[in-house]
């Protein structure tokens, strides 16, 4: 686990702390930056919720009750589910080409789900009550209840899986990995279900979102793996070994496939909206040519789908600079995809007069800086935990891919 087999636990901690402290100036600057971001987010969230009152600190209001922080939460849990799914291809479903990325991906999945919980904890008005009544007054017909509960289970399974992976117990890790996949996919489809089952919200309603969420989770997961693997390699200051390179090339192919799938779904969503009644038409109009057009065409379509696809194609899975830019763009863009998905379904008022295509009547939303700080808090936690993880686990350099596969094979075959 990054320290020799004979070392004691305090020895390991000391080693790990030493690696963090001697990480070099660039590493330490980034680490401090993320720590500051994380702390600023927590302070802003706690102040907003418990002192100022969220309406005055955050940009949400009566007509747009769900916005940036819900979108940030979705962003993180989508990423986590995607990381879990992509990493499971190797160590759960036995495709050895994906094995070298498994440990880092599982750790990232854990980190992102915790980031998601952090943000939602600072979004919900009474987080402490939630911890109590989620268990003592459970509503089994509520998607949000299922999502919360399943994600908690998912987090526990992931943590166990990670520990087992680090101890090279691949067979039991694969079992927990499978449980994580089950819990993660179930939780994730319930996240889609939260919106998909609201018949009163035309833009969300229908089976589209659960399917879209799963596919876009794979897309997000692939982007996270590419970005963080390349950054980790830069941190290590050594070249990638052949297995890692092969894995990364495969993940970038998977990312391209998922971009294509998400683009396909997006196109059909748009086409069906042209015939779905006034609310959908107004939303579509606003998305493609109204005040959200920049966000849609530039931030979502260009940065999230077209440019990354072209860059990944060009990189052929080997030009890491291009892959880094592509994955960075995807992650940046996916954030806006989530925000638009949440906000756009609420812009058409529930009370509006037919035939009055007055865009001035639409609800608008702009986040406050306190709300943005909380979202950055989640990003800060994610960056901080990743950087610490890389040093604590010594860049996962103890990965014995060939051995692991051999072991896995030896374990699974009689």
């Amino acid at each position: 686990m990054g320290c020799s087999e004979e070392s004691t636990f305090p020895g390991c901690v000391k080693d790990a702390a030493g690696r963090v402290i001697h990480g070099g100036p660039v590493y330490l600057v980034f680490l401090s930056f993320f720590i500051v971001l994380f702390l600023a987010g927590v302070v802003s969230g706690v102040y907003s919720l418990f002192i100022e009152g969220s309406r005055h600190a955050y940009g949400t209001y009566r007509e747009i009750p769900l916005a940036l922080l819900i979108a940030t939460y979705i962003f993180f849990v989508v990423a986590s589910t995607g990381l879990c799914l992509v990493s499971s291809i190797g160590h759960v479903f036995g495709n050895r080409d994906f094995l070298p990325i498994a440990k880092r991906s599982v750790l990232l999945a854990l980190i992102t789900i915790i980031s998601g919980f952090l943000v939602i904890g600072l979004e919900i008005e009474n987080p402490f009550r939630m911890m109590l009544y989620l268990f003592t007054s459970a509503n089994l017909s509520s998607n949000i209840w299922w999502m919360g509960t399943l994600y908690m289970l998912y987090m526990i399974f992931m943590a166990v899986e990670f520990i087992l992976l680090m101890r090279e117990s691949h067979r039991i890790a694969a079992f927990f990995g499978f449980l994580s996949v089950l819990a993660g996919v179930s939780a994730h489809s319930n996240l889609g279900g939260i919106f998909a089952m609201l018949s009163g919200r035309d833009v969300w309603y229908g089976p589209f979102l659960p399917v879209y969420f799963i596919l876009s989770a794979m897309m997000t997961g692939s982007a996270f793996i590419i970005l963080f693997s390349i950054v980790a390699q830069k941190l290590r200051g050594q070249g990638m070994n052949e297995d890692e390179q092969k894995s990364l090339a495969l993940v970038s192919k998977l990312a391209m496939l998922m971009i294509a799938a998400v683009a396909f779904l997006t196109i059909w969503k748009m086409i069906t909206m042209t015939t779905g009644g006034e609310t959908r038409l107004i939303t579509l109009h606003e998305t493609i040519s109204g005040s959200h057009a920049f966000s849609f065409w530039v931030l979502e379509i260009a940065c999230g789908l077209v440019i990354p696809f072209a860059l990944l194609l060009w990189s052929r899975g080997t030009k890491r600079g291009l892959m880094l830019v592509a994955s960075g763009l995807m992650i940046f863009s996916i954030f806006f995809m989530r925000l638009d998905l949440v906000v756009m379904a609420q812009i058409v008022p529930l009370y509006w007069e037919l035939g009055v295509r007055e865009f001035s009547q639409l609800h608008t939303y702009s986040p406050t800086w306190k709300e943005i700080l909380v979202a950055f808090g989640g990003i800060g936690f994610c960056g901080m935990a990743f950087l610490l993880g890389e040093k604590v686990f010594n860049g996962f350099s103890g990965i014995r891919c060939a051995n692991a596969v051999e072991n896995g094979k030896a374990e699974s075959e009689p």
Partner: protein
Amino acid sequence: MTTNRREFLKIAGVSTLSLIAPAIVCPAWAKDKIIPVSNSPEALSPSKALTAKRWAMAIDASKCPADCVDCIAACHATHNVPGFGNPKDEVKWIWQEKFAAAFPNESHAYLRESLQKQQLPVLCNHCANPPCVRVCPTKATFQRHDGIVMMDYHRCIGCRLCMAACPYGARSMNYRDPRPFIARINPDYPTRTKGVVEKCNFCQERLAKGLGPACVVACKEKALVFGDMENPQSEIRLLLEKRFNLLRRASLGTKPQIYYIL
């Protein structure tokens, strides 16, 4: 079987399982009635309490004089509804909307203008199939045997999902501590705290004392009629049999219980 085929089958099998799993825990089948034991009519009803199998309201807005807000004033005073003075965090239990806005699916450009402009009182519909109850993770919103959709303010975690789920915009969040914004506190009804949602409760606290809803009592024109939809002889049933009436966004399947007479 080659290793590759075996691997493929393994992946395919397990992926299928993992995709079926969410359907297994799909909450749709888990839809229960969500009626806390203590809310059975017997538990709630002292001898003089008004009871019904399904409470409902009929509104004949043609009787409403222009600018009359008696029902709104009575309701908001009775229930300590705060006046934040800002539409963005306004709390409202009953308010007015134009016919065209309340019934967008039923109105069109050539409808009689006076009808389009007609102001209607709108409030929680106490839907028989309420989406707000289904989505609430902690049962802070629940439905009683008599159809009233109620709030337990103490269990509300402030997730605001119910606000997104209600197709009628009937729910309001206390984004701030409401107490300093209540004109005169009515000691007979609890005030709320910051971070909880609230809405019309069909005056369940008054029904328990044998009194009709505050809005119905306050309306001098008798435009609001309240009663038991399951009783064929009730005033509301007899009225609805005689007069044409509509439900708001009935196609959503929420089964609203506020009937608008036109």
